[in-house]
């Protein structure tokens, strides 16, 4: 009997030593429903959704993990929510039609692309005040920041440029011409490369941020899919710089790119009009927002397989993953 109890105790101790799968929360803006869906990364189910401002698009979490920032594009504001209670705390001045936003690696300030006004607005998160504005090309959109926080890169949809902005002087220090309608700019974690997607051009330009020259333009080819449907938008690169994932819009696929050779390895069919992407912090999963099929696909990063698609609100657009 004592032996049996011993075995049971040991068994329980062994079970408790197995780490439970880490649960993250995935926040998705639903552009047409004016809501944010919250998905649990373990159950892979929408556990709640809450109302936000009109036409929510870009979404990020503050560095301390306590606040959720949502671009309410048609309200011309950035809303700040408490991540625990999901209550609206206050709004930040954002300039008109905020679409995408990014934080300085130190956590402050916040940089916002104002699509209608050809500006980047710089906002102090603590003082809740506009620190400055940088005039850029027509229809600014993509925002990337170098890991050392010294260079902000903004893409302008109509001017077809990646603008390199000095974050201390707010001056444009260089412009790199890329293919038509650049949408997203993403630095690799080590800062050695900048990836810029061109939606209409159908390419991703990999740029050396030091020389500011294009190292390679990645093109895409999916059998049975017309070239004009291959529209790269969201980009994410793994922290080790081994792989990149590129959302291909109406081609309904995410391209898996070997980030060393810059060759496409695989295409994953996700959902209709795949737009933005976000990893879980452990990079186990990658979530894609699929605007037309009204769902989010979960990609198993190690297996390079689509694990599941989760129904959200209408026109899911932005996505961010947090701990709460």
């Amino acid at each position, binding site marked *: 009997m004592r032996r049996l109890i011993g075995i049971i105790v040991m068994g329980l101790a062994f079970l408790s030593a197995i780490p439970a799968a880490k649960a993250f929360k995935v926040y998705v803006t639903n552009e047409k429903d004016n809501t944010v869906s919250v998905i649990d990364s373990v159950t892979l189910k929408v556990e709640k959704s809450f109302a936000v401002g009109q036409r929510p698009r870009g979404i990020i979490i503050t560095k301390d993990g306590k606040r959720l920032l949502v671009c309410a594009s048609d309200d011309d504001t950035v809303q700040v929510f408490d991540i625990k209670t999901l209550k609206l705390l206050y709004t930040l001045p954002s300039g008109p039609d905020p679409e995408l936003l990014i934080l300085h690696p130190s956590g402050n300030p916040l940089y916002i692309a104002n699509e209608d006004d050809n500006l980047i607005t710089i906002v102090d998160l603590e003082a809740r005040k506009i620190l400055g504005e940088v005039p850029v090309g027509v229809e600014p959109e993509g925002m990337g920041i170098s890991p050392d926080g010294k260079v902000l890169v903004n893409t302008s949809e109509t001017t077809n440029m990646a603008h390199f902005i000095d974050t201390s002087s707010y001056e444009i220090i260089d412009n790199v011409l890329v293919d038509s309608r650049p949408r997203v700019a993403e630095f690799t974690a080590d800062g050695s490369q900048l990836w810029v997607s061109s939606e209409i051009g159908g390419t991703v330009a990999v740029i050396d941020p030091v020389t500011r020259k294009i190292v390679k333009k990645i093109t895409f080819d*999916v*059998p*049975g*899919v*017309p070239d004009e*449907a291959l529209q790269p938008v969201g980009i994410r690169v793994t922290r080790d710089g081994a792989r990149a994932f590129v959302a291909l819009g*109406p*081609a*309904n696929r995410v391209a898996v790119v070997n980030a060393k050779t810059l060759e496409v390895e695989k*295409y994953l*069919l996700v*959902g*209709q009009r795949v737009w933005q992407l976000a990893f879980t912090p452990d990079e186990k999963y990658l979530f894609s927002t699929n605007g*037309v*099929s*009204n769902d989010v696909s979960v990609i198993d990063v190690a297996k390079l397989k689509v694990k599941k*698609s989760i129904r959200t609100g209408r026109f899911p657009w932005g996505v961010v993953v947090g701990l709460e």
Partner: protein
Amino acid sequence: MPGAADLGARRRMRRRLCIAFSAAALLLFGSRVWSADATDPDWPCVQRKVPTISAGMIWAGPALDQALRSTWRADEAVARLVPRLAARRTELEEAETLIESFASGLKAATRGRRLALLFAGVLESINTERRQIMAGIERYTRKQRELAQAVRKTRDELSAVLKMANRSDADKARRRKLEETLSWQSRIHDEREQSLQFVCESPVLLEQRAFAIARAIMNHLE
């Protein structure tokens, strides 16, 4: 206090102004109906005209060769299931259950081919329905264009009558008739215009359905 005659005159004036405004608005903005796609004057929708849903856009299973596309009807179980899956009245959950039940009875050796046959059938059926709807939208646009021309003609006739210095009783009756016609024509045009955005959603809804069914079939491929 205004008399009954004054009130009547004001009402008539208001009505005329209203008709004039709506006719002017229709002629100014009505052209939206046939200018959404500059390359196709009959396509009125904001949504891009995509005549056919191609298999490659929504399918990552076995390649659909021509033989597969033309033989799905010969597979009795597939031919029976396709209309139910393609029909919009079949809820997606029910469609998923039907696909699951079909897939569970398949032999490993022919599983991929028969699931591909099923997809080929659903895609063909949805594309056929979608083409009919799109042809309907284009007919709708042409009718709207004819209606706008009719409004223009009535407005010109009314304008000519209103310019007459001395109007006979027959002219006055004609003016009333023309005002009434213009009012009805403008109203019909506007109502049809409002319905357009809902009509334009149909091809997109069918694309969504085709994608959802394709995904449900692909879930049983491995």
